[in-house]
């Protein structure tokens, strides 16, 4: 076990742009987590700008990247340049690329300011654990003093000073005052900033849905900004956390979006207590809309309702028996219930069951289906018609609950009918095709055995018959 660190360590992990080799970085990030780090994992194929923007918004001490696809010299140097230009040169860069990065190239990168490029030889000498412990030691520094480097120019062409917002949240996490940072970020006292809460069971696709909301929001409202606060649980045993929501997000990079991943740390709740501060900070920074996404905690947690104006509950058709629905508190509290993965078998039944439960909970026994805020969606379908509809419903609820209207027409969900629907690849009734194939091949093989056996017997009989024919007449009757 390594020594506990003096500072809470946050690290961004990724594989480089146009590079699908994600096995190594996945192993690294697991070890980082086990050593107590909070890891924001971006996965493969990430551009330098995306990684740097993430590092700044997440206020990390380090970035760890693998690059196996060539172009590493340019890639690592560019990351260093972008960090320096943004006044964030304090963020350390680590890299690896097996044999694709030649020793003399690694040396050049070290001289350029990359903290460490790990070679296969380092791996053999130090072992994976040893390498990660070294990364953690390098990152164990207090980075709270860096604002001195921050000029008035906004980094990376962002609409707001993401550095200050990020740092303010870090200070809030440490229960320190952040007012000195926030003062320059003018608090407008606006009351027109809706907070959308998104919650739901683990694996229901909360981040995917959040991503689809953000994508449509940016597409429809060309000048609006949005902030996303996402909360994931910390591991009690190690103190580490996998902050894995960003990997599912494609719409986050860009000047109009701020995203921050929070670990619950010592709290035992689904929502880190810093979430309240984080929302306040994003409001003060003037984002036009805020999404709070919380860890999947199943049936009981509805504390999210206290934090937001409009709450959305995401579930899948796979919840078990209809009676399970009676236990879900969010069916009482959520403003919208979305059943994701609607291409799954049994989706229509699920929609019916949830509607039924919703009617009971809200004593709306006669309301027509279309008036219930229960809808099926497929967040993983290209331009899904149902998600388009859901987005309209969300705008409608925002209007109802906060009075905020960004676009009158869109907030009327029935107008939003474009998109693709039921893009089903394998029809549910065909889903057992592979077993049918196995059975069909096995049946053929059994037929071969049977037919071959019959043919053998025929051969033997034929042989005997032919033999009998050759025997003298009297011997045939013995």
């Amino acid at each position, binding site marked *: 076990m390594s020594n506990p660190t003096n500072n809470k360590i946050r690290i961004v992990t990724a594989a480089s742009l146009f590079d699908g080799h994600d096995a190594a970085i996945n192993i690294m990030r697991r070890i980082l987590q086990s050593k107590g780090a909070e890891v924001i994992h971006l996965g493969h194929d990430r551009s330098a700008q995306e990684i740097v923007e993430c590092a700044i918004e997440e206020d990390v001490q380090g970035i760890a990247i693998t690059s196996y696809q060539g*172009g590493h010299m340019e890639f690592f140097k560019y990351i260093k340049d972008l960090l320096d230009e943004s006044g964030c040169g304090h963020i350390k860069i680590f890299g690896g690329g097996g044999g694709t990065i030649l020793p003399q190239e690694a040396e050049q990168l070290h001289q350029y300011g990359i903290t460490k490029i790990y070679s296969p030889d380092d791996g053999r000498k130090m072992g994976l654990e040893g390498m990660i412990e070294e990364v953690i030691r390098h990152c164990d520094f207090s980075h709270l003093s860096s604002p001195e480097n921050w000029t008035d120019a906004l980094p990376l062409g962002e609409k707001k000073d993401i550095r200050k917002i990020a740092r303010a949240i870090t200070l809030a996490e440490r229960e320190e005052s952040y007012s000195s940072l926030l003062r320059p970020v003018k608090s407008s006292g606006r009351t027109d900033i809706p907070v959308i809460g998104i919650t739901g069971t683990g694996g229901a696709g909360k981040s995917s849905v959040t991503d689809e909301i953000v994508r449509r929001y940016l597409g429809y409202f060309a000048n609006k900004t949005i902030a996303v606060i996402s909360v994931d649980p910390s591991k009690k045993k190690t103190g580490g956390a996998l902050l894995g929501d960003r990997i599912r997000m494609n719409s986050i990079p860009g000047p109009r979006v701020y995203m921050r991943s929070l670990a619950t740390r010592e709290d035992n709740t689904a929502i880190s207590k810093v979430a309240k501060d984080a929302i306040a900070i994003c409001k003060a920074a003037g984002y036009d809309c805020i999404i709070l996404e919380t860890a999947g905690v199943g049936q009981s947690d509805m504390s999210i309702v206290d934090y937001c104006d409009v709450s959305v509950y995401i579930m899948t058709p796979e919840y078990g028996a209809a009676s399970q629905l009676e236990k879900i508190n969010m069916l009482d509290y959520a403003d919208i219930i979305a059943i994701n993965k609607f291409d799954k078998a049994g989706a229509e039944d699920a929609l019916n069951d949830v509607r039924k439960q919703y009617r009971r909970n809200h004593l709306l026994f006669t309301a027509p289906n279309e008036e219930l805020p229960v809808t099926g969606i497929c967040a993983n379908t290209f331009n899904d018609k149902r998600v388009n509809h859901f987005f309209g419903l969300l705008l409608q609820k925002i209007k109802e609950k906060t009075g905020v209207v960004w676009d009158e027409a869109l907030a009327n969900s029935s107008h939003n009918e474009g998109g693709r629907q039921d893009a089903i690849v394998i029809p549910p009734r065909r889903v057992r095709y592979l077993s049918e194939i196995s059975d069909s091949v096995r049946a053929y093989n059994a037929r071969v055995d049977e037919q071959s056996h019959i043919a053998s017997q025929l051969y033997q009989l034929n042989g005997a018959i032919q033999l009998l024919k050759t025997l003298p007449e009297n011997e045939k009757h013995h």
Partner: protein
Amino acid sequence: MQSILQKQYESLENKLSPEAKQLLEGWKELQKKYESDFFEYTVRGKVIKQEMHTLSLSGTKIPKVALPAYKEWGDIVRWQMQENVPGSFPYTAGVFELKRQGEDPTRMFAGEGGPERTNKRFHYVSADQPAKRLSTAFDSVTLYGQDPAYRPDIYGKIGNAGVSIATVDDAKKLYSGFDLCDPATSVSMTINGPAPVMLAFFMNAAIDQQCEKWIEENKLWHEAEKVRKKKYKHQPPPVYYNPSSPERLPEGNKGLGLKLLGLSGDEVLPPDIYKKIKSEALQQVRGTVQADILKEDQAQNTCIFSTEFALKLMGDVQAFFIDNKVRNFYSVSISGYHIAEAGANPVTQLAFTLANGFTYVEYYLSRGMHIDDFAPNLSFFFSNGMDPEYSVIGRVARRIWAKAIKYMYQGSERSQKLKYHIQTSGRSLHAQEIDFNDIRTTLQALYAIYDNCNSLHTNAYDEAITTPTEESVRRAMAIQLIINRELGSAKTENFIQGSFAVEALTDLVEKAVLTEFDRISDRGGVLGAMERMYQRNKIQEESLHYESLKHSGQLPVVGVNTFLSKKGSPTLVPDEVIRSTTEEKEQQIENVKAFWKRNEEKSAEKLDALKKAAGNNENLFEILMDTVKYCSLGQITHALFEVGGQYRRNM
């Protein structure tokens, strides 16, 4: 007694299926057919006559296909139902009666720098081959559907580990000098996420080559020149220029495909003529585009759109193929290679790949296509490593495919025939004692040829540490030539048939694959299993198993963990790696910029049409065939991102 036996015989005979009866009755004739000196069979209506024997130096008549000497009827029935001669159901020994003459399975992979450099390499590797079988590796910028750019994180990857292709003009240069509609030319393109766009580039290049030939025949170049002059009045036309050999076209390239560079056939020809040429070209082109998005999501990660949308695009390509009678082009190469390279063992490779193949079948059927309209456009691609199962990977694949297509999907004989490409295992090559790598590749190539693969790439020995050179590629080709032309046993096209071990192994692997099918099925089929990351996790576990055995020495690797040299067989680090030059990179960037500029007027409108079609669920490949005349790869990718978003990564 005799009558009892006779009675028994008759009652049993009734239980013999008509199929088995026919096999028994036809056996003698089959034997006779294979004993004769010549063999006649038909391919696409053409009768082909081939000699059935080769003569060795000793004067021995070596049969091309040898039949078992079985007499017992049970053996004869079983052999024909499970093995049979090449070209007969269940095609265990091969899907064709005999190998094509004048065409080795050799297909060499190339791709580096800009299209001109790769074009030169293509002409080099196919120089002495009567059949031009090219295989294209694209750089990672292209594989992810983007255009070359000065932005440093893109810049460094242009033209490295593959060729940079961003426009239809790049594609025209890349394959210039090869007649893409000649039946002896076949082109393979290893690209997946943006495959439909690249395919549209290729198809346009092929069509425009035929337009060139038509203009030539009708002596109408002066007309075409007028159009060119007008179009390029204010800007320079695109040119073929290889910075590393600027003096001329490479040897073998006579310039076909370059005369309409920067022009589309429909800009210079009357619409009816263009339409006719296009229709004929589409029916003639021969090749393969990988386009296998399922294995990308399972193993290799070059996805750019959601899997669902990528599948829709594949279906659109296939539907276009059916409508336009594109019969000689494979719309997908269902690939196990990358699954194996990511660490899967051969059984898993085969099971996952076949399962993916059947998933495409189910998807295309669900779109209303007929099995016999699309199954012949499917092809497969496997890795051959050192494991014993690799000796029968083609046999098992063909046998399972044929049985399933015949009995479950009621497909025709043509649909039942699984054709596949083999690449020797890159993962089995090592950075220590790299000279030994050619030995591994030779053995793997032998597995492949004995197993009757339809197409074969042999890796160069230095691939473990660097980009192959002309010298190392030449050695890799020699491996195939030596097996095909020197090795006497390879003259027999079913050399491994009848081996007890091969038959036993075939049964074992078939059984294991079916069991794996059931496991995937229990997880909701291929797509359901993918959602749970089943395939990824299994591949990873098997990779770790291999690594740990290699590390402990339980799995001997000569020159790596055993039989080390006096110096300990150190890992070789190259002094220098061949990378694309600054000039090549900048040329590609400037070319795409010029392309954008000269198509400025049309591209916005074309992209809008594409986006609208994507929103309306129309056949997008149909549209892409036109879009690519005016828009670059990156422009098209981004337009589609706008409508439907990007691939969402998993963890």
